[in-house]
């Protein structure tokens, strides 16, 4: 009876993981047949994994190292903090602009990102876009790439070959909406009076071009005419072969808001556990919902109109709630972001989490830190490992138990790290 009780408690408080399951495979294992992606449902793949159409190019050009990915992730977090602490003075976009936009007005998109494929134009061209809940403007590189285009896997979109493409006028209200969506005041092309957008991300990546309307196709039954997007003529940055970005933020011009009539501002996604598997991005409330789905209220965050904020109130490790004063979380607020790889916690909360995690992992040899990850283990001589469960407590009594893959970041079997990082202080 004692053994059974111990075993039960272990099951409640720890995961036992086969280490081979943590390492990504080199072959894509799609969860669902391609044909089943319909009715507002898109396949999600990791940008650098074998399921991405961009993967071949990554192999040729070399995927970023884990150090580079984590550094880019830190740049994204720095830019989010910057956006939330400084309301930028809008900058005027000129037709020849590109390198003079204010830095850190957006978020870094080059780190560990997930992509979906959508169709643009008539006839439609398939484009792989990074999906980002932390920004609003959807854009893609466009011919004739008047100034500059980076290398992308698919053919660059050519508006002159589409019968449904139209420019947006400088005087239209949608042109003015760009100011809040990008942090930059739109420009006006001399002669054509076409609205010009500019967006720059925290790592100096940017896109500048024509603000336009076009038909966007998710599936055969999900087609939207007059979708507002950026047709980039000057684009540079760490987009890893993706054709652009799908903005899923809260602003008026985000994909979510533009398709509100059909999908009623409801969307969901599931991110795969490893980069060799697929997930999904689904729009509307018609899709399958997890039977144990729990809701927490959506809130807002000061100066962060684009972000989805929620109330984090506590964290538990191995079934024990950490002793963290609620004010530690409430003073700075919490956002959920599909583009940030590693969760960032207030310094006090991270310190408590790390300490509890280390206490549970004393049986394993430690390993050198990797970039922002300071708690790593050498698990190369183990076939399985026992790691403590971690749960997040959100407002409204919602408890979210993290998947084991959400607790660890595996660089290699000799460096398996706690996948959390701390902010420099509680008020940041």
């Amino acid at each position, binding site marked *: 009876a004692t053994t059974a009780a111990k075993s039960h408690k272990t099951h409640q408080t720890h995961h036992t993981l086969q280490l081979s399951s943590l390492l990504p495979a080199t072959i894509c294992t799609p969860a669902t047949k391609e044909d089943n992606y319909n009715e507002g449902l898109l396949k999600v793949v990791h940008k650098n994994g074998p399921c991405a159409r961009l993967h071949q190019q990554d192999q040729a050009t070399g995927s970023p190292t884990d150090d580079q990915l984590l550094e880019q992730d830190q740049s994204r977090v720095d830019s989010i903090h910057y956006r939330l602490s400084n309301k930028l003075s809008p900058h005027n976009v000129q037709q020849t602009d590109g390198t003079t936009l204010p830095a850190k007005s957006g978020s870094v998109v080059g780190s560990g990102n*997930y992509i979906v494929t959508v169709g643009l134009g008539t006839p439609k061209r398939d484009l792989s876009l990074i999906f980002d809940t932390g920004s609003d403007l959807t854009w893609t590189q466009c011919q004739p790439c008047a100034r500059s285009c980076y290398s992308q896997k698919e053919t660059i979109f050519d508006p002159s070959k589409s019968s449904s493409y139209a420019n947006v006028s400088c005087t239209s209200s949608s042109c003015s909406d760009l100011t809040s969506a990008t942090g930059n005041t739109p420009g006006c092309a001399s002669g054509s009076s076409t609205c010009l957008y500019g967006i720059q991300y925290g790592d100096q990546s940017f896109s500048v071009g024509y603000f336009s309307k076009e038909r966007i196709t998710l599936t055969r039954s999900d087609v939207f005419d007059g979708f507002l997007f950026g047709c980039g003529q000057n684009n540079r940055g760490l987009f890893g072969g993706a054709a652009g970005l799908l903005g899923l933020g809260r602003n008026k011009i985000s994909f979510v808001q533009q398709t509100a009539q059909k999908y009623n501002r409801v969307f969901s*996604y599931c991110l795969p556990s490893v980069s060799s598997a697929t997930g*999904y991005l689904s729009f509307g409330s018609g899709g399958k919902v997890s039977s144990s789905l729990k809701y927490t209220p959506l809130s807002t965050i000061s100066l962060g109109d684009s972000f989805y904020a929620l109330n984090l109130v506590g964290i538990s490790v191995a079934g024990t709630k950490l002793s963290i004063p609620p004010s530690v979380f409430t003073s*700075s*607020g919490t956002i959920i972001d599909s583009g940030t790889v590693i969760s960032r916690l*207030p310094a006090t909360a991270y310190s408590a989490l790390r300490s509890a995690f280390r206490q549970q992992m004393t049986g394993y040899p430690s390993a050198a830190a990797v970039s922002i990850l300071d708690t790593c283990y050498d698990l190369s001589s183990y076939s399985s490992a026992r790691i403590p469960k971690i749960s*997040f407590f959100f407002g409204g009594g919602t408890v*979210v138990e993290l998947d084991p893959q959400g607790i660890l970041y595996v660089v290699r079997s000799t460096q398996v790290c706690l996948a959390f990082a701390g902010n420099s202080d509680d008020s940041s």
Partner: protein
Amino acid sequence: VTIFGNTQQKRLQVVYDIGGGRIGFGPASCS
């Protein structure tokens, strides 16, 4: 600000119901 990043969202169904003012979480296989 605290950020709930994408590693921690793996194998969760994350539902954004903006009109309803709520976000849902549930365990999922992604299939």
